[in-house]
């Protein structure tokens, strides 16, 4: 292909894609973050500090933020996790359950998983 023909092809493509953009075609997205690079904080509240210390050593807040559990279910889960080593001061335990049930109760539909990059082979 001559240089002139190449230019013509590039120009045609440019016009074509500009036309597509004008038609409201989906735009290419930004590069996606990698799995594990987006760490969402837990919501504010009186027991946030207790939840941070008790829960986030072993797993991210994603696990909490996606739950829709009753106070009874949260009580059972907090008991289970304390048995597995979560550090919750005895006098803050009920407060923690109330915080979890308030923020991540049956009506919690706010969680959306973030889109992340495919996993590179060396990870």
């Amino acid at each position, binding site marked *: 292909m001559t240089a002139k023909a190449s230019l013509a092809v590039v120009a045609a*493509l440019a016009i*074509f*894609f500009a036309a*597509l953009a004008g038609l409201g*075609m*989906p*735009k*290419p*997205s*930004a*590069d*996606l*973050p990698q*799995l*594990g*690079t*987006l*760490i*969402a*904080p837990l919501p504010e509240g009186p027991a946030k500090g207790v939840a941070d210390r008790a829960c986030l*050593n*072993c*797993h*991210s*807040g*994603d*696990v909490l933020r*996606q*739950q*829709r*559990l009753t106070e009874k*279910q949260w009580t059972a*889960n907090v008991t289970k996790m304390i*048995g*597995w*080593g*979560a550090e919750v001061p005895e006098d803050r335990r009920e407060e923690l359950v109330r915080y979890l049930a308030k923020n991540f109760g*049956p009506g919690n539909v706010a*969680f959306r*998983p*973030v*889109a*992340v*990059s*495919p*996993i*590179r*082979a060396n*990870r």
Partner: protein
Amino acid sequence: MKVVSGDLAPLTRRKFIGMGAVTLASTALGLPRPERRLLQMNAYAPDAETPLDLLTTYITPNDLFFVRHHWNATAPDPRTWKLTVDGEVALPLELSLADLKRFPRTTVTCVLQCAGNGRSLYTPPVPGIQWRYGAVGNARWTGAKVRDLLAKAGVKGTAKHLHTAGTDDPPSKTPPFHRSLEIVKALEDAIVAWEMNGEPLPPLHGAPARLVVPGWAGDHWMKWLAKLSPQPDPEKGFYMDVGYRYPAKPGEPGVTFKPEEMRPITELFVKSNITGAPARARVGSPATIRGVAFSGAPDIAKVELTDDDGKNWKTADLGREHDPYAWRLWSLPWTPKSPGKVRLAARATDSRGSVQPREAVWNQSGYLWNGWHSVEIEVTA
């Protein structure tokens, strides 16, 4: 929280043209533009599922395959890693990766699905990772047959259960993920795999070697495998006696059972998903609906679609590619008859006659969801 920016990253011309081609192809089919990505369910320990619109190929690529961890694990050094075979055997073994690779090489193509895939779809909600549809994939697993390893060790007739353990240590007082499965199944078709889709098994998938149990849920597929130990009795502990159990006789939604009223999960339930359908269609213009179907039975007998809530069903074409316990791709040209919102639902039937139910059977841990999968399509005149 870091915010995912919607701004455009700098693009090379090649990348721009490549994306244009993908856009064109997708638009021609009336499909959304596929974007290679995973959905993060847990930043750490890493849990991520594959979006349904990417589960459109017979083989799920390694980089798009869902990942699931109980805790932050460290992959062992393949140079020093050993697989111990002990228990009810005449000759205990300690195998390096090189030793393992000297056994006859075998490849199986089959589905790996997390026991909790679809948990978020149960009502009332249950605790655990709220997987939707994508904690599942189909891959070629290459390794050595468990049967050959146990034969070399001289497994005894007293062995009824194969105990398995990985190198990953749990944090704090969390119980270890120690498991067992019936030795009959392990001897039938389980393998110790060191390759996934022709590449060395990736660390997040259990490198250097993991167990592959065709047709059975992912909790049996021990990653970072360190021990195979045939024993007379099942393994004990939280992940056998409490976790990964399903009611012997399930009750109404919300009814919970004691562990002794439940059994360990084994085979997958028959299931199909719609992975490609247009958001909009025109009366009289055929649109292609695509999907995957799989089961704990070796094959899928048929996949059907309904656009009238199950009154009438049309049988889909099954894909040519097929292996025992692998998924089948399926497709069906569907022509809308009248305008309005239409709900299309798919159901699969497996080679043993099990039919995917309208509603999955609620269970307290949210395992093995397999209700009809449906999509809504806006039909215009």
